[in-house]
C-alpha cells in the first residue's frame, strides 16, 4: 500500500523526518518498502513554475497547429507571450506556466523563437511536470480559482513523501490513513486520533428496503440514497492529487470519492445506480447457476459460497469483492445507492481468487474491516459527495442482525515473563495496553481487556503478548541463550549419512550438482509413471522426477555445450514414484533418497606424460566399489540387470544391484542421440538409504609368515566370464590347500587373487583371450613350500582346463 505522508499528517502530527517513522514502523511489523517523492524524478523542485491564466489565444502566423497565448501570472507577474501547441488550450483557463529560467524535470526553460515568434517559456502538461499521465495528456487544466502567480510546487503540496508499505495479512487495520495514524499514535505513545463525522441531514425522500438473508455472513448493512448526483463533476485538486499519490486511477467523481473515503478511514464502499435496483436490497448467498457480469468486464459463474448483494430480481454485486457491470455508476446516473457494510472475512476469504478478480475492497474485507466503521464512513462519504458532486442525501437505512462483538481477553502477568523473557512491572504493562487503545481492567492475575474494534487480529492472550513485545520494542527485549537440558540421543551405528557419501565421492573427484525435482511429464523420460502436478510454472516442470539420471544427462549435455568433455558428476536427492492404484487412487507417492553418478571423458585429465585413455565401465565400477567399501559389506557388481530395470542403459553392459535398487552401466546409444551427447557416459543410480554400515571387528594380527606367489597366464575362450574363473580358481585353490594340510592342521590360504592383465592379439588364438593372475599364498603358522604351491597351481589348471578349456599361455 502507498500512502502520502501529508495525508497522514491530517490525522496525527508527524515528525518532519519520515526516515525515523519508517524505521519505527518497519521494526513494529509494518514494513516500509521504500519512500518516494510525488514527482519524477524525485529531486525535481519545479523551480519557477507558477500558475497562470490564458487571457487570449491567437493564431500563430507561421504554423496552423501552434497558438500564441497571452498569459497572466497575476499581480506583479505581468503578461507574457507563449507559443503553445497543445490542442486543449482555451482562453480563460488556468494552467501551470514555466517562464524562462524555470526548471522542469530534465530541462531548463529559456525564451526562444518558435517558427519565428518569440515564446517566453511554456505552458505545461502533467507529464512535463513529472506528474505522469494521471491528469491525461495535453495541458494540465487547473481550477479557475487557483491563485495566479503562486508556485505550482507549493500550491499542489508537492513537498510530500509517499511511503510504500508491505503489510502482513493480519494488519488489515493499517490499510487506511486513519488506521495507520492510530498505529503511529500507539508506537509514539500519543493520543489516538478521533474519527469524527457530521451527520448529513436527510433531504431526499428516496429509500431502499434492506433484507439480510444471510445474517451470519453480513450482520450489518447500511446504505443511503443520494438523489441528483452529478457524476461528471470534478473532484477537488487536493483529493485527486492524494489519490494519484496512493496509486489509485481516476474513474468518476462518485467512485473517486468512495475510493478516497476507503483510503482515508478503511471502509470499502460501493455506489449502485439506483435506477437499476428493482425492489429491495437482499444480501444473500448465490444460488447455483446464477451469473453476474462484473465491473472489470468478466462474467462470473456463482455458487453457494458467494455472498451477493441482490435486488428482488437478480444479483447486483459480489459482496465486498466487486460491483456488477449493470448497476455500475455511469455518466447517465442520476441517483445512487451508497453502500457501507460489514462482511465476515471468513465468507469472503478466497472468493476473489476463486473468481480471478482483485479489488481494494476484497483485499480489505478479507483481512477484516472494523464493523464500527460502516455508518461513520457512510456519513463522511455522503458529506464529500454532497460537497463535490452535489445531490440530496436520503435517510440512512440500516439492517442489523448481530454485530460482531470484540472478545474479552484475559492476560496473565506471569505469561509476559514466561513467553517474552521480559520482567515488566504491572504498571508498565498496563500503560502499554492503554497505548494499544484497549479498554483494560486489572484482575488478580493480570488484566481483562477489550481490544479496539479496528484490531480484528487481537483475539487471544498470545496476540496481546505480541502487542506488548511490539510496543515495548523488539529491539529492547532481552537476548540470552537458553538453559538447556543436556541429552544424548543415539543415532544407529549403521547410519551412513549423506555427508559421508558426498565427501567420499568428492574425494574420488566427483562434483556434486543440484537439479530441480520438477521435470517434464513425458512418459518416455520415466521408468515408472511419475506423480503429476495440478499446477506448475511450465510443462517442463509438470511431474516429479522418478530418477536422477535424466538430470545428470541434462548437465552433461550442457557441459558439452560449454566444451567440457571430462565429467564426474553426482547428485543426491529424492525421487518419487506414483503409488496410486484403483483401490487407493490418491495415495501419496513413494519418496526415496537416491544417489546417481555420471562419468565420461578421459580416465585422467589431459596432461603431459599421460596417455589419453577413455573411461569405461570398470572405472565407474572402481569408484562405486570405493564408495561401497564404506559399508564394510561385499556387494556383487557383476550381475546383468533385468531388461526393464535398465531402460536408459545399454542392456548388454548393464549391472543390476537389486540389494540397492541400483543399476550401473553405459548410456544406451539411442538416448545418447536424444541428449545429443558426443560420448556415451557411464552411470550408476541407487537407493541411498540402503547403504548401511556393518560393524567393524578387527582381527588380531599374528606373526607374519612369508608369502609365496605365482603368476598364471591362461588362455580361455571369449565366453569365459571373469566372475566364474575367479570363483573356480578360488574354490580349487582352497580345496587343494585343505587337502594338502590334512584334516587336523590349519590350511594355507590363497590370500590374494589379482587379475593383472587381459590380452587379446598375437600369440593368442582367435576368439580367445589371455587372462593373467597373481596368486598369493600364505600359511598362518609356517613357511610354505614351493612344492605345495606348485601342486595347487597344477590342480587349478586341471580344473580350468576341464571347465573352460583353459590352457597355459605360451609366451
Amino acid at each position: 500500500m502507498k500512502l502520502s505522508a501529508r495525508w497522514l499528517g491530517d490525522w496525527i502530527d508527524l515528525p518532519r523526518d519520515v526516515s525515523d517513522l519508517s524505521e519505527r514502523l518497519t521494526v513494529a511489523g509494518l514494513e516500509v518498502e521504500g519512500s518516494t517523492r510525488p514527482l519524477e524524478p524525485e529531486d525535481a523542485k519545479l523551480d519557477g513554475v507558477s500558475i497562470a491564466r490564458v487571457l487570449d489565444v491567437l493564431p500563430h502566423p507561421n504554423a496552423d497547429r501552434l497558438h500564441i497565448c497571452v498569459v497572466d501570472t497575476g499581480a506583479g507577474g505581468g503578461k507574457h507571450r507563449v507559443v503553445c501547441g497543445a490542442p486543449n488550450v482555451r482562453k480563460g483557463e488556468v494552467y501551470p506556466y514555466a517562464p524562462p529560467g524555470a526548471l522542469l524535470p530534465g530541462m531548463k526553460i529559456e525564451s526562444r523563437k518558435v517558427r519565428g515568434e518569440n515564446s517566453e517559456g511554456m505552458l505545461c502538461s502533467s507529464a512535463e511536470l513529472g506528474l505522469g499521465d494521471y491528469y491525461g495528456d495535453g495541458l494540465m487544466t487547473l481550477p479557475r480559482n487557483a491563485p495566479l502567480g503562486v508556485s505550482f510546487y507549493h500550491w499542489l503540496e508537492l513537498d510530500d513523501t509517499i511511503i510504500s508499505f508491505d503489510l502482513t495479512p493480519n494488519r488489515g487495520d493499517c490499510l487506511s490513513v486513519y488506521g495507520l495514524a492510530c498505529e503511529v499514535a500507539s508506537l509514539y505513545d500519543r493520543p489516538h486520533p478521533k474519527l469524527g463525522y457530521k451527520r448529513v441531514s436527510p433531504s431526499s425522500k428516496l429509500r431502499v428496503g434492506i433484507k439480510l438473508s444471510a445474517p451470519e455472513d453480513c450482520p450489518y448493512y447500511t446504505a443511503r440514497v443520494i438523489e441528483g448526483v452529478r457524476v461528471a463533476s470534478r473532484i477537488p485538486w487536493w483529493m485527486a492529487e492524494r489519490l494519484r499519490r496512493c496509486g489509485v486511477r481516476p474513474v468518476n467523481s462518485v467512485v473517486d470519492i468512495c475510493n478516497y473515503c476507503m483510503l482515508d478511514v478503511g471502509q470499502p464502499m460501493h455506489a449502485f445506480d439506483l435506477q437499476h435496483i428493482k425492489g429491495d436490497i437482499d444480501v444473500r448467498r448465490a444460488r447455483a447457476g446464477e451469473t453476474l457480469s462484473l465491473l472489470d468486464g468478466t462474467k462470473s459463474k456463482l455458487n453457494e459460497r458467494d455472498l451477493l448483494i441482490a435486488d428482488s430480481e437478480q444479483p447486483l454485486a459480489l459482496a465486498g469483492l466487486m460491483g456488477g457491470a449493470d448497476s455500475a455508476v455511469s455518466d447517465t446516473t442520476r441517483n445512487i445507492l451508497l453502500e457501507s457494510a460489514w462482511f465476515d472475512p471468513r465468507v469472503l476469504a478466497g472468493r476473489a481468487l476463486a473468481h480471478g478478480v482483485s479489488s481494494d475492497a476484497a483485499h480489505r474485507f478479507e483481512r477484516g474491516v472494523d464493523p464500527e466503521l460502516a455508518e461513520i464512513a457512510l456519513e463522511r462519504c455522503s458529506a464529500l459527495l454532497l460537497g463535490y458532486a452535489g445531490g440530496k442525501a436520503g435517510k440512512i437505512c440500516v439492517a442489523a442482525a448481530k454485530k460482531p462483538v470484540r472478545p474479552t481477553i484475559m492476560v496473565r502477568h506471569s505469561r509476559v515473563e514466561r513467553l517474552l523473557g521480559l520482567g515488566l512491572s504491572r504498571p508498565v504493562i498496563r500503560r502499554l495496553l492503554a497505548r494499544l487503545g484497549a479498554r483494560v481492567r486489572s484482575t488478580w492475575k493480570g488484566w481483562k481487556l477489550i481490544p479496539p474494534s479496528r484490531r480484528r487480529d487481537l483475539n487471544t492472550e498470545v496476540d496481546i503478548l505480541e502487542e506488548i513485545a511490539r510496543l515495548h520494542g523488539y529491539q529492547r527485549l532481552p537476548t540470552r541463550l537458553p538453559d538447556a537440558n543436556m541429552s544424548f540421543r543415539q543415532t544407529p551405528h549403521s547410519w551412513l549419512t549423506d555427508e559421508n557419501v558426498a565427501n567420499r565421492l568428492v574425494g574420488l573427484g566427483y562434483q556434486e550438482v543440484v537439479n530441480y525435482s520438477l521435470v517434464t511429464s513425458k512418459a518416455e523420460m520415466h521408468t515408472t509413471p511419475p506423480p503429476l502436478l495440478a499446477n506448475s510454472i511450465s510443462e517442463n516442470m509438470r511431474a516429479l522426477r522418478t530418477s536422477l539420471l535424466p538430470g545428470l544427462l541434462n548437465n552433461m549435455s550442457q557441459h558439452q555445450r560449454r566444451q567440457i568433455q571430462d565429467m564426474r558428476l553426482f547428485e543426491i536427492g529424492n525421487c518419487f514414484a506414483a503409488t496410486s492404484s484403483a483401490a487407493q487412487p490418491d495415495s501419496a507417492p513413494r519418496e526415496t533418497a537416491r544417489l546417481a553418478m555420471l562419468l565420461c571423458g578421459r580416465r585422467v585429465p589431459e596432461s603431459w606424460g599421460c596417455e589419453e585413455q577413455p573411461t569405461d565401465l570398470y572405472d565407474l565400477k572402481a569408484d562405486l566399489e570405493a564408495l561401497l567399501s564404506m559399508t564394510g559389506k561385499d556387494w556383487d557388481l557383476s550381475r546383468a540387470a533385468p531388461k526393464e530395470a535398465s531402460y536408459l542403459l545399454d542392456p548388454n553392459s548393464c549391472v543390476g544391484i537389486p540389494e540397492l535398487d541400483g543399476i550401473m552401466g553405459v548410456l544406451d546409444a539411442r538416448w545418447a542421440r536424444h541428449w545429443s551427447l558426443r560420448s556415451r557416459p557411464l552411470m550408476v543410480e541407487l537407493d541411498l538409504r540402503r547403504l548401511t554400515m556393518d560393524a567393524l571387528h578387527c582381527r588380531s594380527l599374528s606373526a607374519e609368515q612369508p608369502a609365496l606367489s605365482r603368476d598364471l597366464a591362461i588362455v580361455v575362450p571369449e565366453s569365459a566370464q571373469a566372475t566364474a574363473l575367479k570363483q573356480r580358481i578360488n574354490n580349487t585353490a582352497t580345496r587343494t590347500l585343505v587337502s594338502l594340510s590334512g584334516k587336523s592342521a590349519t590350511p594355507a590360504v590363497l590370500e590374494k587373487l589379482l587379475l593383472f592383465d587381459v590380452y587379446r592379439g598375437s600369440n593368442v588364438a582367435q576368439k580367445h583371450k589371455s587372462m593373467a593372475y597373481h596368486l598369493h599364498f600364505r600359511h598362518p603358522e609356517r613357511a610354505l613350500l614351493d612344492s605345495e604351491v606348485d601342486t595347487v597351481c597344477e590342480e587349478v589348471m586341471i580344473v580350468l582346463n576341464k571347465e573352460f578349456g583353459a590352457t597355459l599361455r605360451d609366451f
Partner: protein
Amino acid sequence: MTVLTEKDVADLCARARTEIRNAGDLEALELCRRTYLGRKSELYQQLQTLGTLEAPLRRERGAYLNRTRATLEECVQSRKAELVDAPQTDSAVADLGLPSRARYVGGLHPLTMTMLRIRRLFQSAGFELAEGPEVEDEYHNFDALNVYADHPARTMHDTMYLAQEQRDNRLLLRSHTSPVQIRTMREQPPPLRIICPGRAYRCDMDLTHTPMFHQVEGLWIDKHISFADLRGVVTEFLQLFFGYEESLSVRFRASYFPFTEPSAEVDIGCVRCHGQGCKVCGRSGWLEVMGCGMVHPNVLAEAGLDADEWNGMAFGLGVERLAMLYYDIDDLRLFFDNDPRFLSQFWGRTS
C-alpha cells in the same frame, strides 16, 4: 710369480689409492676394489704366498702387506661413503615449473556446503536432525500450522498441488519445511530440539525466486523457552554463521506468520557494505535473512501439547539466501544451472 718388494707394494698402494680416490661412481669403485683387493689382485696373491716363507720374513712381509690391504680397504670405504653421500651432480635438473600431473578434483555444491555449515552450528548446540517428506498434505503444510483454508497466507504461498481426484486434504509439494515441526512433535515427546534442512516448492520463477528452493527449519520445544531465548539462539547463530561474531548487528522486526506468535523477521547489517547502504541491501543497510517466532498455542495444541506447560521457538532459514550472502553469489539461478565455471570455484572447499 714374482715377489714384490716393499717398494713395489708401496708403489702399488699409491697407484691404487689414486685410482680409488678418482673412482667416479660406485661401479668404478667396485672395479677398483676388485682389481686391487679381489681374489685375483696382486696384493691378494702376494698374501697367499706368505705361508711359504720363513717365519721372520713372513712376519715382516705379512706386516706391510696386511697394512697395505687395510689401508686400501679403508680407502675404498671412505670413497664409498663419499660417493653415496655426494650430491647427484650428473642427474637431470628437474623443471620445477612443469605442471603437476592432472587429477580430477571434486566438490560439494554450495547449497550442500551451506546446509552442512548451518547444520553443524546447530548440531553443536544440541539440535538434532529431523526429516519429513517433500510431498505433503494440506493438513501438515497448512491446517496444523494454523493456516486455515482461504487464509490470505495460503494464497501467498503459491503452492503446487499434485494432480488427483480427492478434494479435501489434498497432496502438495511442501511450500516450506515447517510441516516437519508437526511431524516431529507428534512422533517424539518433548523436550525437542531439531533442525530440518530440505527442499521446498512454490509456483514462482523470477530473478529472486526458483520453483524449488532449500530451507532449514528449526524447532525447540521445552518448558522455559522464551522470546529472549529465541533472540539469543538466532543472534548467536547468525553471528557465527557469517563469522563476524559480535560485530554483526542483528535486528528483530515484528512480523506475522500464522504458526508463530510473537513472530519476527530477522535482519542482519549488510555484509557487503556494513550498513552503509549498497545495491545488495537496497540501500537500507539491512538484509532480511530469516523468519522466526514463538510456536503458536494452536500449533502446540494441534500437536497434542499443552500450551500452558510447553512452549517453544521455531525458525526458518532460506539456504539460497544465506549462501548468496556468504559466498558473494549475485544470481540465484546459478545454483541450479550447475555451470562448471561456477561450481569449480567451490572445489576442495569444506563447509
